[in-house]
């Protein structure tokens, strides 16, 4: 498995020891997935979730249970009541 592609997709950068450990394990896992090929799944629908019930929606009304200050208190950086992050556009 070429893990470089997925490293970029998942926004991670592996150290060399991690790369070698993960590569070996990933290859083993991918090889094991080959066993799925022999199972006939023609005309079988996918199963996303096991519950045979419909989704439940609440009223589309804002609930302000948690104060802004509480939510901001977990931010690594904040400024003037907003989350602070680097510029996303140069």
């Amino acid at each position, binding site marked *: 498995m070429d893990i470089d592609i997925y*490293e970029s997709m*998942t926004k*991670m950068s*592996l150290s060399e020891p991690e790369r070698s*450990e993960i590569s070996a394990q*990933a290859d083993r*896992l991918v090889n094991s997935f080959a*066993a799925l090929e022999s199972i006939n799944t023609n005309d079988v629908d996918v199963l996303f979730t096991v*519950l045979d019930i419909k989704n439940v929606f609440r009223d589309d009304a804002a609930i302000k249970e948690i104060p802004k200050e509480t939510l901001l208190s977990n931010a690594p950086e904040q400024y003037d009541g907003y989350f602070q992050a680097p510029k*996303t556009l140069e």
Partner: protein
Amino acid sequence: MSYFIEDYGVRGHNAVALEDSIMQKGKQVTANSKILEGFVSPFNAAVAERLINAQFTVAGKTSMNEFGIPSLLNGQTEVLGAVKVVSDGVVDYALCNDIFGQYRKQAAENSCCYIHPTYGTVSRFGIIPLASSMDRIGVVCKNISDGFNVLSKIAGNDFRDGAMYPEKTYKYEISDKRIRIGIPKAVTQKDELFDENVTKTLGECFQTVDMELENFDVYKQVVYILSCAEISNNISRYDGVKFGYRTPAYRGVNELYINTRSEGFGTDVKLTALMGAMVLSQENYVPYYEKAMKVRRLIKNSLRFDNYDVIALPCSIGNDPYENLSLYALSALAGLPSVTFKHNGHNIQLVGNVKREDLLLTAWEVCRHEL
């Protein structure tokens, strides 16, 4: 592994330990990950709220694998905090989220019991999500009957979790039904001692039924593919912007994401995230992810609970954690309840039909008195 990541010092009969993935308002919750270092819960998880309302107190947050992902690289060598804390008698109960079976396995190995309820009967609101279609809070306990008492306090519909059965409460009571135990011989034979001793003694107390678990040989692949995909999605939220760890070294937002996630996640989480991205990628979606979802349906549809009430399984088939996933996948994939416990030196797992925890309780009582 120590008992607690954070110990509140509360003990006594009504003290319950929570895995460090369950939120308690005003307390730190990290799922044992650097990426959530210092994160303080802004609200209570539904299970924490219900425990507190039922006059239980929280003893502390137990140590765990990072995000609850067991190591396929090195295996699970240490006893997890939620099991150790009950096994050593520090508290009588601990709550945790067990997708991969590590708590179920360790509970039996350490003379505790584990109750894994039906998916959709205990609210997931306020737990740090892992694989959402399989996440569920279970109970580590010394005695299954007492464990069900705790479960009855936390189970029941919660509008904040969109994937729940409608029942507001659940009562877990012993049934008069004569239990029929399904024995999947092809699986039990993988553990010689279990096959020789446990299936024989189960036959002395219960009607046993020979059965087959269709596609058992790919259970581990299916649960691994689906859980990795869900986990990879769920942990994409950790980017160092709104909460949790942020790398001190970055130039621009892309480096902020990459350095934060690279420094914040451990190797097992990285493997899971990469595998999840792989099975969801355009070229692999159909052969792996979609295929696994179809086989999941086949597995769920293959069960015949009109022929048996409970399925007996061993708790381990060797030392390879990936192979052992097979034993715990049935419950995860089909949303079934299960109990694990040690009896006469053997680790036993019983899996029941959806919302038939009463039959698991009954089977355990029979085992306790007659085996």
